[in-house]
């Protein structure tokens, strides 16, 4: 009973503390810093959900952009005001989609479910590919989804994209989902399912001999990953407020890949650290891209500088410390004391 009481106290304390911190941050942060904090949260969601595939299962996916695109389009059509949808002439969608506008939570769930279905459709053929062929196949999935979104204007409004997406994203949504995801992945890592994932990543044939149903657990992993990836993408478009077919292209996925490579594949704390580093550098370098005056000397515009910087960071990291900052360890009290 004492144990149960202790656990209850621990959870109440943690949740209360989180509430307090977010309440204070909501009051304190404005403008640039608020956006930075929200992007940080979204990047955590994207990085951890990609890490479930790339770090745990050991299949290096760079095709999550396609999943994000599906989730984002589904949710965008549900939350965009009906007046905007009526303004697009050549949109041929069922009338009930054109006539509804729903709040964020159902849109998140519906988008997430569609993302999950897409992820499972992706995994069924891709599961037969090994190693870098899987990489290439998922890259192809990404390109196929972007191409489809660009070339079927009757369903997606084509390269014109969608605008007028309502600004629903705030600290509570982003960090609520992020903390929930961190919590369930930490639990998952110690549970049977999570250990099955990790053992598939270490050696899938050995895992199969130990009685793990490979197909089933790969589908589970892709389902979880795709669901949260889609949710991250939906939160992203409700922050950026527009959606184009090229929004989640290879460059976007490359940023997320950089996060998990820097942080450490298979480590949740590593993903958080990687997300923090990448978000911070991207947002700090972004003003430099626009060009500025340095001691009377006009520094010219340099678009694409952030991507170059991230690429350099990724390559240096792969050369100097291929396992990332955290490896596959987690930050815990024992870790802070220096124990393994």
């Amino acid at each position, binding site marked *: 009973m004492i144990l149960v009481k202790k656990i209850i106290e621990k959870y109440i304390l943690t949740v209360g503390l989180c509430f307090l911190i977010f309440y204070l941050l909501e009051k304190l942060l404005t403008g640039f810093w608020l956006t930075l904090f929200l992007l940080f949260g979204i990047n955590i969601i994207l990085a951890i959900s990609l890490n479930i595939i790339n770090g745990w299962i050991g299949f*290096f996916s760079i095709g999550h952009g396609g999943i994000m695109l599906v989730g984002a389009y589904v949710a965008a059509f549900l939350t965009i005001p009906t007046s905007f949808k009526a303004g697009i002439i050549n949109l041929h969608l069922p009338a009930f989609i054109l006539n509804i506008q729903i709040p964020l939570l159902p849109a998140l769930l519906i988008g997430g479910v569609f993302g999950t279905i897409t992820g499972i459709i992706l995994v069924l053929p891709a599961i037969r590919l090994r190693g870098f062929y899987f990489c*290439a196949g998922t890259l*192809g999935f990404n390109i196929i989804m972007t*191409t489809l979104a660009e*070339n079927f204007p009757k369903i997606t409004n084509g390269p014109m994209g969608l605008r007028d997406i309502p600004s629903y994203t705030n600290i509570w949504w982003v960090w609520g989902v992020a903390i929930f995801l961190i919590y369930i992945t930490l639990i998952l890592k110690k549970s049977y399912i999570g250990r099955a994932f990790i053992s598939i990543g270490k050696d899938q044939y050995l895992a199969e001999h130990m009685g793990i149903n490979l197909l089933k657990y790969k589908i589970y992993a892709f389902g979880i990953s795709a669901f949260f990836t889609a949710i991250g993408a939906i939160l992203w478009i409700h922050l950026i407020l527009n959606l184009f077919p090229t929004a989640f292209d290879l460059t976007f996925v490359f940023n997320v890949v950089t996060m998990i490579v820097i942080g450490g594949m298979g480590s949740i704390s590593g993903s958080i650290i990687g997300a923090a580093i990448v978000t911070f550098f991207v947002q700090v370098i972004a003003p430099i891209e626009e060009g500025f005056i340095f001691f009377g000397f006009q520094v010219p515009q340099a678009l*694409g500088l952030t*991507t*170059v910087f991230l690429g350099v960071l990724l*390559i240096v990291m*792969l050369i100097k410390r291929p396992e990332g900052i955290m490896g596959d360890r987690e930050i815990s009290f024992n870790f802070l004391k220096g124990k393994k």
Partner: protein
Amino acid sequence: MNYFIQQVLNALGWGSIIALLAVGYTMTFGVIGLVNFAYGEVFMIGAFAAYFAVTVLNLPFWVGILTSLIGAIVIGLTIERTAFKPVRGSGMITLFITSLGASIIVRNLSIMFFDDNLKNFKVPKFYSGVYLFGDIIILKKNILILLITITFCIMLVYLVKNTKLGIAMRGISYDSKISETLGVNTERIIIITFIIASFFGGIAGILWGILFGSIRASMGAIPVVDAFIASVIGGVGNVFGAIVSGYILAIGSSLFIAYLPSELVGLKPLFIWVVFFIILIFKPSGLFRANIK
């Protein structure tokens, strides 16, 4: 029927570029197991070197060809030394991600310096003009590009099959450690492989300039993916297979577009990826024998 033949003939120029790039891919893949996504940037730098020599500095065309080849080889070797050498041996996926990173770095840097607008690529008058056979139009430059490609590919196939260098390359492709114990200078052979691959990239860059008459900083993105798929379909490491499947892919996607309703023309990338998935799932070793060049 004329329409069909016309489409096939039109695809030959594009197919040659894909075939040349696929050869470069297959060389680096066969020798060190590297899927070099930065290869598209080698190709792009080759085209830009020729552009600067011929269009900006008004030098004769053969100087343009020379600068293009030198530029491509320099950038190819630089990427190999700085990015690939330190991570060699740490797995295919690490190499793949590194090459992706290198590709994105070089592409964004060149967009930063040269911007991403189309640039006019000046070619000698000799290359323009058409032959007419009844209803069928054959562009002179397509024939020329085809001949150049075939010549270089035959030279490469001869080199790989019959010379000592080619035998050393094939040896490393089978097992680099054993061939090193047998007295092959692995490092030197790898550098030579990269030089050959970059050479083909530079030639493909010039041919792109001749074919389309304009170049841009992000032009490496599309042919690099096509060429990669061509090299996989041809059986990785197989030079002859890469050439043939480069042409097959180009002609196939050209016909795919030709018989599709006109509003769906943008679906061109879909064709090669569908072919890629079908080949990988039903015949993973490619259409031709893999690993024997």
